[in-house]
């Protein structure tokens, strides 16, 4: 099973090369990969329908409990078949749609990589593994939406989709990790077995909220839906595949996968049913306000996703059954309709439904495919869409308000189906400017095959009862009986559902008649779009960038002295710590003070003050020399003749260098204000006090050296040297001295290079 997932990635690797080698036929050839996968997964249908679960696992990251563990159950198989099956048609379709595009090879690669990620996602039985694939779908989606990357709109839409879904992804990650903590495992079947433990865990509410946030962003629940209509900037094969049939269902899939773990609380129920219903109704209405064919379809997709979320939230066996049927039916007809939209766009150069009519003559086969798909979308007998609607209604009978909402949403859906499947194909044939000629097979095969599939699955729905039952049972955590037939018998629920279907149809027709009115409403609702989430996202991004600029002005202003000031200020808390009562520095005693040393200290202090106050650079250098020699004499008086000698030598050298370099440097000028100088003086003095306190504190400790005794004893016998300081330098701590020499050599090289190596074109 791992190879089945990896096949897509491998295909992605060879796709650009294959495309270069095969040219126009590449789509047909590359489609062999998803086709083979479809057949492979289909071969499991009998077993899975019979209730078997196929498992495969290998260690991956045992340290973190991440296992390459895949599981093919009813739910997984339905999704896998949709992903690989529709993927096959899409690859062929893309070859026709983007024929001649130099980046087609890359598009194939991304489509196949996406397919593999999606398969991995639906087959994962390990939370972290699932998340890995989840994020991969986001990133492939980003690159696919941005296929026409030289258009700014496409780039923006891609970014928006990415940021929204990845935000959700991060919430999801946190949620999954918490779930792992609560259940002490990332293994899904194991977690299902521990569901009571999880439900009772204090982290449970946080888990539900975070998981829902992840699912809602991916499955475009309002108010996080706005990226999906924007994503219609992608080439149509991408929209058809990712943004209607598969990726947007990932969120719903996740909810379905985790339902057996997390369902059963008011929180879960409220979140899913609440947001799901809202999304279902509002976006179905918004779909009627659009004139761009793809955006119309995008909003109905959002609506279907809302329905699915609601159904999963309800969690009754009937609702879960309906969810499974709707997933399948919707994927088939929506992908078909998107492909139709692409063909129309391809042929006529527009997607404006108000400017399209009478296309049946120009696009005869497409018309058939579109008609079939639209009938299914409208929920007419005997299409699979009918089954989906019927089972949904049947599931909602106990919930009158939800039922009413669903009827309303479906009626809007009906209107859209009529527009897409009827209105643009009938009526007066239009003149097509720049007609690209007849539509190739690669393009029309998709909608036609999907349309037929939608019909067959409706008529022969009973054949799928086993798999649907297992998929629903996987979600419910209990056995769900499933009967899928166009005629459900004479029970009250069945008859009521049928009656509602008829009512939906009539309501839809009424809406269709009033479509003009609805569209006029759209202009009056413009203000809403101006202030909607889409706009909020833009504003949020702009605000973020402003915040970033503001912060950077404060932290990275470019004034070195304030950088130094910041460092100095960070030292001050140490002083507070050491000056507070109870610190080892207290009481401070001065002890006996030697006259000579006091005089030296005075000299050093005076020289320092002179350096700070003089206006002459050369005088300051002299003062600096005074500081250095004074320090050297201090060393001498405290038993450190080597130090004193070195200090004398270095000081002399320093003064010479200073004199040589300084006359090229500018004169002193007072550039700061009095207040600034005062502030700096206070802060610098405080920092000085911190260092004084540190020295005093160190002196207060016993401080006997743990090592010097060894040096005192071993210098002569072991290292043959009488000057212990020298012995330490050249023997005990020779590595320090090595480093010291290296520093000097490199510094010398650096000075040489600084003086000699000037940028090109500059005279020496």
């Amino acid at each position, binding site marked *: 099973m791992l190879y089945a997932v990896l096949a897509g990635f491998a295909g992605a690797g060879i796709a650009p090369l294959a495309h270069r080698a095969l040219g126009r036929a590449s789509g047909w050839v590359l489609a062999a990969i998803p086709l083979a996968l479809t057949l492979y997964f289909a071969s499991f249908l009998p077993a899975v329908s019979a209730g078997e679960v196929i498992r495969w696992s290998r260690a991956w990251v045992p340290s*973190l409990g991440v296992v390459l563990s895949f599981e093919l159950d009813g739910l997984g198989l339905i999704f896998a078949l949709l992903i690989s099956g529709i993927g096959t048609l899409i690859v062929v379709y893309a070859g026709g749609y983007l024929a001649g595009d130099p980046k087609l090879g890359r598009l194939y690669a991304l489509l196949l990589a996406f397919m593999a990620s999606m398969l991995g996602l639906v087959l994962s039985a390990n939370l972290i593994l699932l998340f890995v694939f989840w994020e*991969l779908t986001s990133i492939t989606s980003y690159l696919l939406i941005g296929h026409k990357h030289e258009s700014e709109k496409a780039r923006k839409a891609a970014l928006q989709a990415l940021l929204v879904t990845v935000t959700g992804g991060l919430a999801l990650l946190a949620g999954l990790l918490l779930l792992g903590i609560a259940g002490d495992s990332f293994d899904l079947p194991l977690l299902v077995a521990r569901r009571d433990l999880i439900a009772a865990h204090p982290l449970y509410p946080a888990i539900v909220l975070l998981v829902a946030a992840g699912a809602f962003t991916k499955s475009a629940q309002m108010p996080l839906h706005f990226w999906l209509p924007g994503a219609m900037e992608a080439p149509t094969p991408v929209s058809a595949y990712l943004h209607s049939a598969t990726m947007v269902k990932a969120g719903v899939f996740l909810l379905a996968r985790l339902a057996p773990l997390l369902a059963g609380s008011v929180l879960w129920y409220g979140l899913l049913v609440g947001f799901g219903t809202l999304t279902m109704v509002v976006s179905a209405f918004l779909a009627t306000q659009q004139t761009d064919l793809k955006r119309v379809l995008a909003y109905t997709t959002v609506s279907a996703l809302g329905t699915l979320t609601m159904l999963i939230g309800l969690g009754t066996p009937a609702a879960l059954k309906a969810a499974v049927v709707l997933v399948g039916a919707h994927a088939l007809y929506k992908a078909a309709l998107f492909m139709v939209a692409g063909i129309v766009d391809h042929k006529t150069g527009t997607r404006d439904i108000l400017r399209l009519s009478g296309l049946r003559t120009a696009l005869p086969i497409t018309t058939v495919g579109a008609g079939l798909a639209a009938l299914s979308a409208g929920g007419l007998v005997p299409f699979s869409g009918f089954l989906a609607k019927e089972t949904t209604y049947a599931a909602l009978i106990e919930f009158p308000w939800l039922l009413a909402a669903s009827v309303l949403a479906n009626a809007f859906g009906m209107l859209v189906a009529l527009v897409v499947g009827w209105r643009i194909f009938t009526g007066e044939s239009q003149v097509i400017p720049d007609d690209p000629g007849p539509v190739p097979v690669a393009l029309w095969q998709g909608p036609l095959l999907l349309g037929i599939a939608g019909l067959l699955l409706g008529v022969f729905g009973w054949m799928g009862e086993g798999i649907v039952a297992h998929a629903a049972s996987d979600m419910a955590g209990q056995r769900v009986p499933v009967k899928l037939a166009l005629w459900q018998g004479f029970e009250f629920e069945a008859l009521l559902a049928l009656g509602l279907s008829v009512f939906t149809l009539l309501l839809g027709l009424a809406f269709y008649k009033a479509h003009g009115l609805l569209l006029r409403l759209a202009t009056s609702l413009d203000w809403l779009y101006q202030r909607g989430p889409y706009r909020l996202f833009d504003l949020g991004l702009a605000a973020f960038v402003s915040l970033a600029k503001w912060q*950077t002005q404060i932290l990275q202003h470019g004034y070195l002295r304030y950088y*130094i000031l910041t460092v100095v200020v960070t030292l001050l808390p140490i002083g507070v710590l050491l000056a507070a009562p109870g610190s080892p520095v207290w009481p401070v005693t001065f002890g006996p003070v030697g006259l000579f040393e006091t005089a030296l200290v005075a000299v050093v202090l005076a020289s320092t003050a002179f350096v700070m106050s003089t206006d002459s650079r050369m005088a300051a250098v002299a003062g600096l020399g005074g500081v250095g020699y004074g320090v050297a004499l201090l060393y001498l008086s405290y038993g450190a003749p080597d130090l004193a000698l070195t200090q004398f030598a270095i000081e002399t050298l320093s003064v010479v260098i200073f004199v040589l370099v300084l006359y090229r440097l500018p004169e002193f000028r007072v550039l700061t204000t009095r207040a600034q100088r005062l502030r700096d003086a206070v802060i610098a003095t405080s920092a000085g006090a911190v260092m004084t306190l540190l020295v005093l504190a160190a002196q207060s400790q016993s401080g006997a050296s743990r090592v010097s005794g060894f040096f005192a004893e071993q210098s002569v016998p072991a290292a043959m040297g009488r000057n212990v300081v020298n012995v330490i330098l050249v023997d*005990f701590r020779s590595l320090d001295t090595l480093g010291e020499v290296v520093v000097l050599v490199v510094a010398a090289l650096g000075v040489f290079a600084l003086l000699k190596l000037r940028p090109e074109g500059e005279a020496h």
Partner: protein
Amino acid sequence: MASLLVLPIVTPLGTAVLALFLWRHRRAQQAVSLLGAAALLAWAVALLLSVSRDGIQATAIGNWPAPFGITLVADLLSAMMVTLAAIVGAAVAVYSVATIDARRESFGYHPIFHVLLAGVCGAFLTGDLFNLYVWFEVLLISSFVLMGLGGERGQLEGSVKYVTLNLLSSALFLAAVGVLYGTVGTLNMADLAVALQDPRVDSRLTLAIALLLLVAFGIKAAMFPVFAWLPASYHTPPAAVAAVFAGLLTKVGVYALVRVFTLIFTHDTGVTHGLILVLSGLTMVSGVLGAAAQGEFRRVLSFHIISQIGYMLMGLGLYTRLALAGTVFYLTHHIIVKTNLFLVSGIVHRLKGTLDLASLGGLYRTRPILALLFLVPALSLAGLPPLSGFWAKLLLVQAGLEAESYSIVVVALVVSLLTLYSMTKLWTEAFWKAAPDAAEAPLSAGEWRGLLLPVAALALLTVVLGLGVEPVLALSLRAAEQLLNPAEYIRVVLGGRP
């Protein structure tokens, strides 16, 4: 055994000396540099294998036993860091041969580059606090020279800030060493750990020293609020230099923080590590916001170094096994990825003659391979699976959740989103959008290969580290265990040779 600890320091130093002798022979210097880098890599890997197999190793320089002489110590953290330094060294050595101009080469670029590596390895391996200072100075002076080499205005101005703030940091570090010696009378880090256990040592003074070191190393690690030197300077030198800086230098600061705050200062973790945790969050946020405000390729990358230092410190602040493993793994991941991104920026600059995002564009169309090689480290940096950055982020987030430090987890997650935003900005501006000026500098096929080779190798390493994460992750966990239980480290250093 002992020689394995010495070789990562001696090899680059020897290489540098050899290259110095070949002052006038550029080609020979290049060859020596490549050979030296390869040898370093070989020794580093051997050291890592040996430490992984036999445990912590120590060797006393000149056979003066610890704590009297200077001891080199390699635990897993040190060995891993040395290996990473060697990997970066090798990649950048190759890249340098392809990109560094003859003028810089004739002024000692190659020898100084290897001295830098010696300084870095020395810092990772030494077991003595003052010796750590010495290696810090070795790598600092080399970095000063490399940064200023070429003498262009931006380089020099950036260097003024870089040099000043790092010298200030060194002065504080050295002061802390002095106070520490005055307090407990030893410099060997293992011995310091033992000596500070003595209840007679004033705990407040210990805390004060710890805070002083936090500031000193914090500057070197580019921690909030003392990171300003980094964005002021890292975008100014040639790409090869910036890449090695970006990969290694701040990480030496992080290493030093990890070392002293796991080995020496673990008395008052509520204060010290709690403070580090808060600072780590601020570092993440200020870095990522800084990046969002930038409009130049390398400036964006420079600010992201800061934000990622925050992640590494987060693990130290949380101070659990998983968290420290997160720090170690993050270091590993980051060093490879960040070096690579700077190398990519160098190629972009070579092609387009600028790194100003507004003037870039079109590279996805014209250079798809380069685009891919950018995308791998960029997405890894943003923590997207299954690349290395994802696992690094996962470890830290998991550790934070387990420790119930939810606020830092939220910060870490939000910052990773903003990092992704930054990476998409680079991607959009440099690769996706149409170039305002379509002209690209011509590159011969050979030149192109020379540029791509190290980048491709590092990108491959990122992918391998992501997909085959287990070995390095297990190593990081073991390294974390060693850090959390320093008794073994102390025993090996003080209790005679193994």
